[in-house]
């Protein structure tokens, strides 16, 4: 895997004395995109937020079925700190924060020693507050600022008014770890980390090029008898198609989100509706509660789904599920609300039969 390269802070030594513009320009040219899920070009984001006052490393990975950030944090902390150094230098930021997920706090001492040894900057490690919404950019900024973790309305974007109302830049762990590699020879911006779990023999993190076919990817993890895949909780659900191209564009065209590259594999024995119910439960528990459409919508969706534990749906109930699936993204303001019913909208598109089987036919 490329990301496991030992770089020993060579890039940092090389570019320490370059100007901000030159660094940002180089990153723009490299074509590296953010790995947090939105796939936003890193160079463009930095250009918008330069000069930032705060830099935040988002290590609050909490998407179900995604664990590649944990892998990166565990195996290449040096690359992350090197990336942080580059970011601080390029953005002229005063203070950096690593917003570390509470479950990963065992990694904190390791980071502290590396920071002490290799970073001239002020980097603080903050242990996360534990809500799913803390992983969302604006929710995280609120949480860091001592406020309630609630998404903010955009605009203003964090690049204009973020933490403590100052210019702020937020980047994902994997993005930072890839930064130093840009200055190496034959750097490939299209390399992604996929977290594969579920009905596979070898679950784990795999590095592959964006645009890889699904069958190749699943062969790595030794999947058998696959029926469908879920792209994390919020990325949508797709029937197994060996030639499905795993790229951001193609997946969004099909109504899903590649997101942070989490893939949950299901075999023929699994029920799509039951998996959807667990995901509905997840969003009904984990939304911040700010917008009524998301808060109430997901709760009512859960109520509708709980019914099938002991009886079949009535026709009217399935209609309401379809209505809410369309409605919730319209009324919500942050990425969580907007993608909280993606799994259902895709499941209803590709596995309508499974839903109809659970419905009274009259």
């Amino acid at each position, binding site marked *: 895997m490329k990301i496991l390269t030992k770089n020993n802070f060579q890039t940092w030594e090389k570019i320490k004395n370059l100007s901000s513009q030159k660094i940002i320009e180089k990153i723009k040219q490299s074509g590296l995109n953010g790995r947090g899920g939105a796939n936003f070009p890193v160079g463009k984001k930095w250009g918008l937020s330069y000069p930032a006052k705060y830099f935040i490393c988002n290590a609050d990975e909490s998407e179900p079925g995604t664990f590649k950030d944990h892998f990166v944090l565990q195996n290449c902390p040096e690359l992350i700190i090197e990336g942080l150094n580059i970011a601080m230098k390029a953005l002229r930021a005063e203070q950096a924060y690593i917003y570390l997920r509470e479950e990963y706090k065992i990694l904190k001492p390791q980071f502290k020693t590396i920071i002490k040894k290799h970073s001239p900057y002020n980097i603080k490690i903050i242990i996360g507050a534990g*809500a799913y*919404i803390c992983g969302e950019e604006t929710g995280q900024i609120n949480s860091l600022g001592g406020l*309630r*973790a*609630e998404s903010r*309305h955009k*605009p203003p974007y964090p690049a204009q008014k973020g933490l403590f109302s100052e210019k702020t830049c937020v980047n994902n762990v994997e993005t930072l770890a890839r930064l130093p590699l840009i200055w190496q020879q034959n750097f490939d911006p299209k390399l992604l980390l996929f977290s594969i779990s579920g009905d596979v023999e070898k679950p784990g993190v795999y590095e592959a090029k964006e645009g890889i076919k699904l069958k190749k990817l699943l062969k790595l993890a030794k999947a058998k008898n696959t029926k469908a895949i879920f792209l994390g909780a919020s990325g949508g659900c797709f029937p197994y198609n060996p030639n499905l191209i795993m790229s951001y564009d193609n997946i969004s065209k099909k109504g899903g989100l590649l997101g942070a590259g989490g893939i949950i594999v299901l075999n023929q024995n699994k029920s799509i509706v039951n998996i959807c119910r667990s995901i509905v439960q997840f969003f*009904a*528990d*984990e*939304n*911040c*509660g*700010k*917008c*009524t*459409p998301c*808060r*109430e*919508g*997901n*709760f*009512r969706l859960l*109520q509708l789904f709980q019914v099938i534990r002991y009886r079949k749906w009535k026709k009217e109930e399935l209609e*309401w599920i379809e*209505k*809410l699936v369309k*409605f919730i993204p*319209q*009324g919500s*303001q942050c990425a969580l609300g907007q993608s909280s019913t993606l799994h259902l909208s895709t499941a209803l598109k590709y596995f309508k039969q499974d839903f109809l089987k659970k419905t009274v036919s009259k």
Partner: protein
Amino acid sequence: MESKKIKLIINGKKISAPAGQTILEVAKKNNIKIPTLCYHEDLKPEGRCGVCGVEVNGQIMTACNNKIKAGMIIKTNSKKVQEYRKINIQLVGCNFAREDAFKKWLKMENLPDIDELRFKPKTKEKIDCSACDITIDFSKCILCGRCIQKCRDVQSVNAICFAQRANALKVGTSFDKNIIQTTCVGCGQCALVCPTGAIKERDYISEVEKALADKKKHVIIQTAPSLRVALGEEFDMPAGTLVTKKMVSALRKLGFDKIFDTDFGADITIMEEANELIERIQKKKTMPMFTSCCPGWVNFLETFYPKMRKHLSTCKSPHQMFGSIVKTYYARKFGINPKDIIVVSGMPCTAKKYEARRKEMHSSGYQDVDYVLTTRELAKLIKKRKINFAKLEDQEFDMPLGESSGGGVIFGASGGVMESAIRTAHYILTGKELKNIEYTAVRGIQKIKKATIKIGNLKLNLAVVHGLANARKILEEVKSKKCNYHFIEVMACPGGCIGGGGQPQPTTMAIIKKRADAIYQQDKKQKFRQAHNNPQIQQLYQKFLGQPLGKKAHKLLHTTYRDKSKRI
């Protein structure tokens, strides 16, 4: 930047509007109605309820917090919007505890009525009635978040906040304490913006009714200056209508034995406070002096800045002074046993409910003021007795405690106490009346007003603030000793008492302005404009109190303060 015009289309109509405005503001200006629920004119829109969703270039967006951009094509009533609204109303509707309240709101916002709610309303917690100023009924809450915004942004008190998340989200307090154990100062601004009455004042109507029915009791009501400019709004009169005389006759119909004016109390306050200010300057005591007639503000200082208690004037608030004068001077003059006197205060305020029950407010030997009713409660009482308010005849206050000066009237607006204190202080110091008695530098709804005035050879630096977040700024300034103010007036509520927590809904800055105009008009009409010229006040001092700041005055009209910082 602001003068730049943006062109957009709303419902097929071409419109150009200045940049920086939200969709809702532009629509409102062009008479296009968009339904709202959590939106409030004076607060920053957060887009919580989603009711104001409109179609912008094919996508649904909330109108309250999205700014206009060039080339937007907005549809406020397309099929897509209607479908969106239909579902949203169902979801919002099951948040309302009472169906009639929900239907009333639907009608108000011109939304289509629905026969039945698809989902059952959730059962929530019961009522928090631990405090004697406000009560919270969680079952009525629709989570619009206005109260929290007021408490956090306007008042910087942070007594209430959102607790939990997702479906369990509720308006709560830190560590789930009862409201009385929090930093709540009782200003009631939360109750003023609550659209469903989940937060409201503690109700004392039944106690007052009981007292009115009791023939042995001599029930006296005093009404605050800001009541007469706001009470009419409860009876569908335009904002800023003066209803002093109708109010008096309504109160008489309710069966109160005597109807007096808190303005009389305000005149006493001015006599004491102006003298205290002069004494402080001459004897070089703790400076600057803060006014103390706002109980919300007093609570705030006692809670957050207890070490600065010395700066507070020791004067009681006007209605408390009035209460103790009634139970001593008035009782003796008319031969009534003070035990049988019930003093009810009609106030625009919820914090005064707490103030009346303070231990320090028993200087007449009894509880000086027995019950405090807010403007809303008084209107409720009048409506309950089916009195046709608009058709009432005009009547006058009872004497002797119904006489007041213009200086007492303007207490209701921010800057009023300052202005009226200057009028009297000028007379005390120089023996002459102030030439231009309308001191406009301290009027208006600016957040912090500063002025300097010369009285004789004294140069006084003055500041007037309203809203507790602004008060905090001034306090920090005083604490850092970077300023040399002499006298600072603070009102907890934006706009002063006319924007108080017990006033009719809706109360917005625009309405507060109208009420202030009415107050200043009343001042102009008054026979006497200065507190010291009120003949009844002169008589009170001659026959009963002796000198301002004298021994008797000190016992009856002054108070002490406590350290409440443990509540933080």
